[in-house]
Protein backbone atom coordinates (compact mmCIF):
# COMPACT_ATOMS: atom_id res chain seq x y z
CA UNK A 1 0.00 0.00 0.00
CA UNK A 2 1.40 3.38 -0.96
CA UNK A 3 1.56 6.00 1.72
CA UNK A 4 1.88 9.72 1.25
CA UNK A 5 4.75 11.88 2.43
CA UNK A 6 2.91 12.99 5.53
CA UNK A 7 2.18 9.44 6.62
CA UNK A 8 5.78 8.49 5.95
CA UNK A 9 6.96 11.42 8.05
CA UNK A 10 4.63 10.30 10.80
CA UNK A 11 5.98 6.74 10.64
CA UNK A 12 9.52 8.07 10.89
CA UNK A 13 8.58 10.17 13.88
CA UNK A 14 6.97 7.16 15.54
CA UNK A 15 10.03 5.02 14.76
CA UNK A 16 12.28 7.54 16.45
CA UNK A 17 9.98 7.51 19.47
CA UNK A 18 10.09 3.68 19.43
CA UNK A 19 6.34 3.37 19.02
CA UNK A 20 6.05 1.42 15.77
CA UNK A 21 4.42 -1.97 15.62
CA UNK A 22 6.32 -4.76 13.84
CA UNK A 23 4.11 -4.38 10.79
CA UNK A 24 4.62 -0.61 10.64
CA UNK A 25 8.34 -1.06 11.14
CA UNK A 26 8.49 -3.40 8.16
CA UNK A 27 6.53 -0.98 6.05
CA UNK A 28 8.87 1.86 6.97
CA UNK A 29 11.90 -0.25 6.09
CA UNK A 30 10.45 -0.99 2.66
CA UNK A 31 9.64 2.65 2.01
CA UNK A 32 13.07 3.82 3.10
CA UNK A 33 14.74 1.21 0.93
CA UNK A 34 12.89 2.55 -2.10
CA UNK A 35 13.37 6.24 -1.41
CA UNK A 36 16.77 7.88 -0.97
CA UNK A 37 15.24 11.23 -0.03
CA UNK A 38 13.19 9.57 2.67
CA UNK A 39 16.30 7.90 4.05
CA UNK A 40 18.09 11.24 4.19
CA UNK A 41 15.12 12.82 5.93
CA UNK A 42 14.97 9.94 8.40
CA UNK A 43 18.68 10.35 9.21
CA UNK A 44 18.15 14.09 9.68
CA UNK A 45 15.26 13.50 12.04
CA UNK A 46 17.31 11.02 14.07
CA UNK A 47 20.15 13.53 14.40
CA UNK A 48 17.70 16.21 15.47
CA UNK A 49 16.23 13.87 18.02
CA UNK A 50 19.70 13.17 19.43
CA UNK A 51 20.40 16.88 19.60
CA UNK A 52 17.14 17.54 21.38
CA UNK A 53 17.94 14.77 23.84
CA UNK A 54 21.30 16.36 24.58
CA UNK A 55 19.76 19.77 24.88
CA UNK A 56 17.16 18.41 27.27
CA UNK A 57 19.91 17.13 29.55
CA UNK A 58 21.58 20.48 29.88
CA UNK A 59 21.37 22.29 33.21
CA UNK A 60 18.96 25.18 33.52
CA UNK A 61 20.39 28.43 32.20
CA UNK A 62 22.27 30.47 34.81
CA UNK A 63 22.08 34.21 35.20
CA UNK A 64 24.84 34.86 32.67
CA UNK A 65 22.85 33.01 30.08
CA UNK A 66 19.59 34.62 31.03
CA UNK A 67 19.43 37.15 28.20
CA UNK A 68 20.29 34.50 25.65
CA UNK A 69 17.70 32.20 27.19
CA UNK A 70 14.98 34.85 27.05
CA UNK A 71 15.94 35.68 23.49
CA UNK A 72 15.86 32.00 22.61
CA UNK A 73 12.39 31.67 24.12
CA UNK A 74 11.24 34.68 22.17
CA UNK A 75 12.63 33.34 18.91
CA UNK A 76 11.05 29.99 19.57
CA UNK A 77 7.70 31.62 20.26
CA UNK A 78 7.95 33.64 17.06
CA UNK A 79 8.72 30.45 15.17
CA UNK A 80 5.78 28.64 16.75
CA UNK A 81 3.49 31.55 15.92
CA UNK A 82 4.71 31.38 12.33
CA UNK A 83 3.88 27.66 12.25
CA UNK A 84 0.43 28.41 13.60
CA UNK A 85 -0.15 31.05 10.93
CA UNK A 86 0.98 28.63 8.24
CA UNK A 87 -1.59 26.18 9.56
CA UNK A 88 -4.17 29.00 9.36
CA UNK A 89 -3.44 29.15 5.65
CA UNK A 90 -1.64 32.50 5.74
CA UNK A 91 0.68 32.55 2.76
CA UNK A 92 2.85 35.33 4.10
CA UNK A 93 3.66 33.27 7.18
CA UNK A 94 5.33 30.59 5.09
CA UNK A 95 8.24 32.94 4.37
CA UNK A 96 8.57 33.75 8.08
CA UNK A 97 8.53 30.10 8.91
CA UNK A 98 11.12 29.24 6.27
CA UNK A 99 13.46 31.85 7.71
CA UNK A 100 13.08 30.39 11.19
CA UNK A 101 13.55 26.83 9.95
CA UNK A 102 16.73 27.81 8.14
CA UNK A 103 18.23 29.26 11.29
CA UNK A 104 17.22 26.40 13.56
CA UNK A 105 16.80 22.88 12.16
CA UNK A 106 15.25 21.75 15.47
CA UNK A 107 12.11 23.56 14.48
CA UNK A 108 11.30 20.90 11.89
CA UNK A 109 10.16 18.56 14.63
CA UNK A 110 8.16 21.32 16.23
CA UNK A 111 6.35 21.97 12.99
CA UNK A 112 5.67 18.28 12.67
CA UNK A 113 4.06 18.21 16.12
CA UNK A 114 1.87 21.19 15.31
CA UNK A 115 0.75 19.68 12.02
CA UNK A 116 -0.08 16.46 13.78
CA UNK A 117 -1.96 18.27 16.50
CA UNK A 118 -3.93 20.12 13.84
CA UNK A 119 -4.91 16.88 12.13
CA UNK A 120 -5.98 15.28 15.39
CA UNK A 121 -8.04 18.26 16.52
CA UNK A 122 -9.70 18.67 13.13
CA UNK A 123 -10.47 14.97 12.99
CA UNK A 124 -11.96 15.11 16.46
CA UNK A 125 -13.89 18.22 15.45
CA UNK A 126 -15.41 16.36 12.51
CA UNK A 127 -17.35 14.10 14.88
CA UNK A 128 -21.00 14.96 14.38
CA UNK A 129 -22.96 15.66 17.56
CA UNK A 130 -25.41 12.79 18.14
CA UNK A 131 -28.43 14.86 17.14
CA UNK A 132 -31.34 14.16 14.81
CA UNK A 133 -31.03 17.34 12.78
CA UNK A 134 -34.26 16.89 10.82
CA UNK A 135 -36.33 16.60 13.97
CA UNK A 136 -34.45 19.44 15.60
CA UNK A 137 -35.16 21.58 12.53
CA UNK A 138 -38.86 20.82 12.80
CA UNK A 139 -38.80 21.65 16.49
CA UNK A 140 -37.01 24.95 15.92
CA UNK A 141 -39.45 25.94 13.18
CA UNK A 142 -42.40 25.06 15.42
CA UNK A 143 -40.96 27.22 18.17
CA UNK A 144 -40.53 30.18 15.84
CA UNK A 145 -44.00 29.77 14.31
CA UNK A 146 -45.54 29.62 17.78
CA UNK A 147 -43.67 32.79 18.67
CA UNK A 148 -44.90 34.48 15.49
CA UNK A 149 -48.51 33.38 16.10
CA UNK A 150 -48.24 34.61 19.67
CA UNK A 151 -47.18 38.00 18.40
CA UNK A 152 -50.30 38.33 16.23
CA UNK A 153 -52.78 37.02 18.81
CA UNK A 154 -51.31 39.25 21.42
CA UNK A 155 -52.11 42.48 19.57
CA UNK A 156 -55.20 43.41 21.67
CA UNK A 157 -53.28 42.56 24.81
CA UNK A 158 -50.35 44.55 23.57
CA UNK A 159 -52.58 47.56 22.98
CA UNK A 160 -54.04 47.21 26.45
CA UNK A 161 -50.58 46.76 27.85
CA UNK A 162 -49.40 49.85 26.05
CA UNK A 163 -52.32 52.14 26.76
CA UNK A 164 -53.22 51.12 30.29
CA UNK A 165 -50.23 52.89 31.80
CA UNK A 166 -50.99 55.97 29.70
CA UNK A 167 -54.61 56.00 30.86
CA UNK A 168 -53.53 55.52 34.45
CA UNK A 169 -51.05 58.34 34.13
CA UNK A 170 -53.70 60.64 32.66
CA UNK A 171 -56.13 59.77 35.47
CA UNK A 172 -53.51 60.48 38.05
CA UNK A 173 -52.75 63.80 36.40
CA UNK A 174 -56.43 64.77 36.52
CA UNK A 175 -56.81 63.76 40.14
CA UNK A 176 -53.64 65.60 41.05
CA UNK A 177 -54.90 68.70 39.23
CA UNK A 178 -58.21 68.59 41.06
CA UNK A 179 -56.53 68.11 44.39
CA UNK A 180 -54.19 70.98 43.69
CA UNK A 181 -56.97 73.29 42.67
CA UNK A 182 -59.00 72.39 45.76
CA UNK A 183 -55.99 72.87 47.96
CA UNK A 184 -55.32 76.29 46.47
CA UNK A 185 -58.96 77.41 46.57
CA UNK A 186 -61.37 77.92 43.74
CA UNK A 187 -59.94 78.94 40.46
CA UNK A 188 -59.33 82.63 40.15
CA UNK A 189 -61.99 84.45 38.21
CA UNK A 190 -61.68 87.74 36.54
CA UNK A 191 -63.39 90.24 38.83
CA UNK A 192 -66.48 91.70 37.28
CA UNK A 193 -68.55 94.65 38.35
CA UNK A 194 -70.49 94.17 41.50
CA UNK A 195 -74.21 93.88 40.94
CA UNK A 196 -76.74 95.06 43.42
CA UNK A 197 -80.45 94.54 43.08
CA UNK A 198 -83.09 95.80 45.33
CA UNK A 199 -86.78 95.41 45.52
CA UNK A 200 -89.48 96.92 47.66
CA UNK A 201 -90.93 93.93 49.45
CA UNK A 202 -92.83 95.64 52.16
CA UNK A 203 -94.96 96.67 53.90
CA UNK A 204 -97.08 93.55 53.66
CA UNK A 205 -100.59 93.97 52.28
CA UNK A 206 -102.06 92.96 55.61
CA UNK A 207 -100.35 95.88 57.30
CA UNK A 208 -100.06 98.72 54.83
CA UNK A 209 -99.09 101.14 57.52
CA UNK A 210 -96.06 99.26 58.50
CA UNK A 211 -92.61 100.45 57.59
CA UNK A 212 -91.54 99.89 54.02
CA UNK A 213 -88.99 97.17 53.55
CA UNK A 214 -86.40 97.21 50.78
CA UNK A 215 -84.55 93.99 50.09
CA UNK A 216 -81.08 94.21 48.62
CA UNK A 217 -79.40 91.40 46.81
CA UNK A 218 -75.60 91.55 46.26
CA UNK A 219 -73.70 89.69 43.65
CA UNK A 220 -70.12 90.70 44.31
CA UNK A 221 -67.04 89.54 42.51
CA UNK A 222 -64.80 87.40 44.77
CA UNK A 223 -61.99 89.89 44.91
CA UNK A 224 -64.20 92.93 45.13
CA UNK A 225 -64.31 94.66 48.47
CA UNK A 226 -67.34 93.59 50.42
CA UNK A 227 -68.84 96.92 50.43
CA UNK A 228 -72.12 98.17 49.37
CA UNK A 229 -73.74 101.42 49.92
CA UNK A 230 -77.34 102.00 50.59
CA UNK A 231 -78.68 105.38 50.80
CA UNK A 232 -81.93 106.38 52.32
CA UNK A 233 -83.35 109.56 53.40
CA UNK A 234 -82.46 110.48 56.91
CA UNK A 235 -85.15 109.45 59.26
CA UNK A 236 -87.18 107.75 56.60
CA UNK A 237 -87.53 104.66 58.75
CA UNK A 238 -86.70 102.35 55.88
CA UNK A 239 -85.21 99.05 57.02
CA UNK A 240 -82.37 97.83 54.83
CA UNK A 241 -82.30 94.09 54.58
CA UNK A 242 -79.20 92.66 52.96
CA UNK A 243 -78.97 89.09 51.73
CA UNK A 244 -76.08 87.32 50.10
CA UNK A 245 -73.10 85.33 51.00
CA UNK A 246 -72.42 87.55 54.00
CA UNK A 247 -75.61 86.37 55.54
CA UNK A 248 -78.62 88.47 56.31
CA UNK A 249 -78.02 91.82 57.80
CA UNK A 250 -80.57 94.30 58.81
CA UNK A 251 -79.99 97.76 59.87
CA UNK A 252 -82.53 100.46 60.18
CA UNK A 253 -81.67 103.57 58.29
CA UNK A 254 -82.81 105.78 61.05
CA UNK A 255 -80.19 108.39 61.51
CA UNK A 256 -77.95 106.68 59.03
CA UNK A 257 -77.46 107.99 55.57
CA UNK A 258 -74.83 105.50 54.63
CA UNK A 259 -74.55 101.91 55.61
CA UNK A 260 -71.31 100.13 55.04
CA UNK A 261 -71.14 96.34 55.23
Amino acid sequence: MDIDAEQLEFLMSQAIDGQLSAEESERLKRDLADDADARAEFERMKRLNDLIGQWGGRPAPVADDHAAHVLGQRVRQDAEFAISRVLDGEEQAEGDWAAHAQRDPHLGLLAHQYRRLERVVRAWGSIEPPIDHERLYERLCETIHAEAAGRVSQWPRRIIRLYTPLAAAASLAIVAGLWWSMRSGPPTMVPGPARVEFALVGPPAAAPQAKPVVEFSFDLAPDAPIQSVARAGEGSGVVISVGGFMGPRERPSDGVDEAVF
Partner: protein
Amino acid sequence: MVASGQQVEDRLVDAELVRRTLEGDTEGFDELIRRYQRRAVSVAYRLLGNAHDAMEVCQDAFLRAYRSLESLKDPERFGPWLMRTVSNLSLNFRRSRRQSTPIPVDDCLLSGGEEGMGSDWMASAGMPPDEALASELGVAISKAINELPEKQRLALVLFAIEGIAQKDVADTLECSVEAVKWHVFQARKTLKEKLADYL
Protein backbone atom coordinates in the same frame (compact mmCIF):
# COMPACT_ATOMS: atom_id res chain seq x y z
CA MET B 1 -9.20 39.53 3.96
CA VAL B 2 -11.60 39.57 1.00
CA ALA B 3 -14.75 37.47 1.14
CA SER B 4 -15.03 34.80 -1.54
CA GLY B 5 -17.76 34.87 -4.18
CA GLN B 6 -19.67 32.17 -2.37
CA GLN B 7 -19.46 34.06 0.93
CA VAL B 8 -20.75 37.21 -0.72
CA GLU B 9 -23.63 35.29 -2.26
CA ASP B 10 -24.44 33.63 1.07
CA ARG B 11 -24.56 37.00 2.77
CA LEU B 12 -26.91 38.41 0.17
CA VAL B 13 -29.21 35.43 0.61
CA ASP B 14 -29.10 35.90 4.37
CA ALA B 15 -30.00 39.57 3.99
CA GLU B 16 -32.97 38.70 1.77
CA LEU B 17 -34.20 36.07 4.24
CA VAL B 18 -33.90 38.53 7.10
CA ARG B 19 -35.89 41.09 5.09
CA ARG B 20 -38.63 38.54 4.35
CA THR B 21 -38.82 37.56 7.99
CA LEU B 22 -39.16 41.16 9.10
CA GLU B 23 -42.00 41.56 6.64
CA GLY B 24 -43.84 38.75 8.38
CA ASP B 25 -42.82 35.78 6.25
CA THR B 26 -41.89 33.22 8.89
CA GLU B 27 -40.70 30.79 6.26
CA GLY B 28 -37.83 33.16 5.63
CA PHE B 29 -36.62 32.43 9.13
CA ASP B 30 -37.19 28.70 8.60
CA GLU B 31 -34.66 28.92 5.80
CA LEU B 32 -32.21 30.76 8.04
CA ILE B 33 -32.58 27.94 10.55
CA ARG B 34 -31.92 25.44 7.78
CA ARG B 35 -28.75 27.27 6.80
CA TYR B 36 -27.28 27.75 10.25
CA GLN B 37 -28.69 24.99 12.45
CA ARG B 38 -25.84 22.52 12.02
CA ARG B 39 -23.16 25.09 12.63
CA ALA B 40 -24.97 26.54 15.65
CA VAL B 41 -25.46 23.12 17.23
CA SER B 42 -21.91 22.11 16.45
CA VAL B 43 -20.40 25.26 18.00
CA ALA B 44 -22.54 24.88 21.11
CA TYR B 45 -21.64 21.19 21.27
CA ARG B 46 -17.89 21.89 21.13
CA LEU B 47 -18.23 24.56 23.79
CA LEU B 48 -20.56 22.68 26.13
CA GLY B 49 -19.47 19.11 25.64
CA ASN B 50 -22.89 17.48 25.44
CA ALA B 51 -25.62 17.33 22.84
CA HIS B 52 -28.55 18.01 25.14
CA ASP B 53 -27.22 21.34 26.38
CA ALA B 54 -26.11 22.20 22.86
CA MET B 55 -29.67 21.78 21.51
CA GLU B 56 -31.11 23.81 24.35
CA VAL B 57 -28.68 26.66 23.71
CA CYS B 58 -29.29 26.40 19.97
CA GLN B 59 -33.06 26.67 20.40
CA ASP B 60 -32.67 29.62 22.75
CA ALA B 61 -30.29 31.31 20.32
CA PHE B 62 -32.66 31.03 17.34
CA LEU B 63 -35.58 32.27 19.42
CA ARG B 64 -33.61 35.27 20.66
CA ALA B 65 -32.40 35.96 17.15
CA TYR B 66 -35.99 35.94 15.87
CA ARG B 67 -37.20 38.22 18.64
CA SER B 68 -34.44 40.76 18.14
CA LEU B 69 -34.05 40.50 14.38
CA GLU B 70 -35.09 44.13 14.01
CA SER B 71 -32.02 45.18 15.96
CA LEU B 72 -29.67 43.53 13.44
CA LYS B 73 -28.11 46.53 11.76
CA ASP B 74 -26.47 44.67 8.90
CA PRO B 75 -28.69 41.79 7.71
CA GLU B 76 -25.82 40.41 5.62
CA ARG B 77 -24.02 39.64 8.88
CA PHE B 78 -26.76 37.39 10.20
CA GLY B 79 -24.39 34.40 10.42
CA PRO B 80 -21.71 35.98 12.60
CA TRP B 81 -24.43 37.69 14.64
CA LEU B 82 -26.13 34.36 15.31
CA MET B 83 -22.81 32.67 16.10
CA ARG B 84 -22.05 35.43 18.61
CA THR B 85 -25.39 34.73 20.24
CA VAL B 86 -24.70 30.99 20.30
CA SER B 87 -21.20 31.52 21.70
CA ASN B 88 -22.34 33.93 24.40
CA LEU B 89 -25.25 31.73 25.42
CA SER B 90 -22.96 28.71 25.55
CA LEU B 91 -20.47 30.54 27.74
CA ASN B 92 -23.26 31.79 30.00
CA PHE B 93 -24.66 28.27 30.13
CA ARG B 94 -21.29 26.95 31.22
CA ARG B 95 -20.90 29.61 33.87
CA SER B 96 -24.23 29.03 35.50
CA ARG B 97 -25.82 25.98 33.96
CA ARG B 98 -29.21 27.69 34.13
CA GLN B 99 -29.07 31.44 33.89
CA SER B 100 -32.11 31.95 31.74
CA THR B 101 -35.39 30.10 31.73
CA PRO B 102 -34.59 26.75 30.18
CA ILE B 103 -36.48 25.69 27.11
CA PRO B 104 -37.09 21.96 27.40
CA VAL B 105 -35.74 19.87 24.60
CA ASP B 106 -36.88 16.33 24.01
CA ASP B 107 -34.39 13.56 24.45
CA CYS B 108 -35.84 11.99 21.33
CA LEU B 109 -33.97 14.61 19.32
CA LEU B 110 -30.76 12.83 20.24
CA SER B 111 -29.82 10.40 17.54
CA GLY B 112 -27.77 8.13 19.76
CA GLY B 113 -25.69 7.93 22.88
CA GLU B 114 -22.87 10.35 23.41
CA GLU B 115 -20.55 7.61 24.54
CA GLY B 116 -18.69 5.40 22.16
CA MET B 117 -18.66 7.60 19.08
CA GLY B 118 -16.44 5.16 17.28
CA SER B 119 -12.92 5.47 16.09
CA ASP B 120 -13.47 6.32 12.43
CA TRP B 121 -12.41 9.88 12.99
CA MET B 122 -8.90 8.70 13.90
CA ALA B 123 -8.28 7.60 10.34
CA SER B 124 -8.56 11.19 9.12
CA ALA B 125 -5.93 12.10 11.71
CA GLY B 126 -3.57 9.53 10.16
CA MET B 127 -3.93 7.24 13.14
CA PRO B 128 -4.93 3.61 13.07
CA PRO B 129 -8.54 3.25 14.30
CA ASP B 130 -8.60 2.02 17.87
CA GLU B 131 -11.82 2.16 19.84
CA ALA B 132 -10.19 2.45 23.25
CA LEU B 133 -7.62 5.00 22.15
CA ALA B 134 -10.28 6.98 20.26
CA SER B 135 -12.35 7.24 23.40
CA GLU B 136 -9.36 8.15 25.56
CA LEU B 137 -8.00 10.67 23.08
CA GLY B 138 -11.45 12.16 22.53
CA VAL B 139 -11.87 12.73 26.24
CA ALA B 140 -8.36 14.18 26.50
CA ILE B 141 -8.96 16.63 23.62
CA SER B 142 -12.34 17.64 24.98
CA LYS B 143 -10.90 18.20 28.45
CA ALA B 144 -7.91 20.14 27.13
CA ILE B 145 -10.17 22.40 25.05
CA ASN B 146 -12.56 22.95 27.95
CA GLU B 147 -9.68 24.06 30.14
CA LEU B 148 -8.58 26.75 27.70
CA PRO B 149 -9.34 30.39 28.52
CA GLU B 150 -12.66 31.48 26.97
CA LYS B 151 -11.31 33.51 24.06
CA GLN B 152 -8.78 30.86 23.11
CA ARG B 153 -11.43 28.17 23.28
CA LEU B 154 -13.85 30.18 21.15
CA ALA B 155 -11.19 31.11 18.61
CA LEU B 156 -10.03 27.51 18.28
CA VAL B 157 -13.53 26.06 18.02
CA LEU B 158 -14.90 28.67 15.62
CA PHE B 159 -11.87 28.96 13.37
CA ALA B 160 -9.76 25.81 13.56
CA ILE B 161 -12.60 23.34 14.04
CA GLU B 162 -15.71 24.90 12.50
CA GLY B 163 -13.79 26.65 9.74
CA ILE B 164 -15.49 30.00 10.23
CA ALA B 165 -13.62 32.88 8.55
CA GLN B 166 -11.21 34.78 10.79
CA LYS B 167 -13.04 38.04 10.13
CA ASP B 168 -16.30 36.51 11.33
CA VAL B 169 -14.58 35.01 14.36
CA ALA B 170 -13.16 38.45 15.09
CA ASP B 171 -16.69 39.86 14.93
CA THR B 172 -17.91 37.19 17.28
CA LEU B 173 -15.08 37.73 19.76
CA GLU B 174 -15.25 41.50 19.24
CA CYS B 175 -11.53 41.71 18.62
CA SER B 176 -9.14 42.13 15.69
CA VAL B 177 -8.22 39.43 13.19
CA GLU B 178 -4.66 39.52 14.50
CA ALA B 179 -5.97 38.86 18.00
CA VAL B 180 -7.88 35.85 16.66
CA LYS B 181 -4.65 34.44 15.18
CA TRP B 182 -2.90 34.96 18.49
CA HIS B 183 -5.70 33.27 20.47
CA VAL B 184 -5.66 30.30 18.09
CA PHE B 185 -1.89 30.04 18.42
CA GLN B 186 -1.99 30.14 22.21
CA ALA B 187 -4.68 27.48 22.18
CA ARG B 188 -2.63 25.23 19.90
CA LYS B 189 0.43 25.72 22.04
CA THR B 190 -1.43 24.70 25.18
CA LEU B 191 -3.01 21.71 23.47
CA LYS B 192 0.35 20.59 22.15
CA GLU B 193 1.67 20.47 25.68
CA LYS B 194 -1.40 18.80 27.16
CA LEU B 195 -1.73 16.22 24.39
CA ALA B 196 1.97 15.57 24.03
CA ASP B 197 1.50 11.92 24.92
CA TYR B 198 -0.71 11.40 21.90
CA LEU B 199 1.27 13.37 19.33
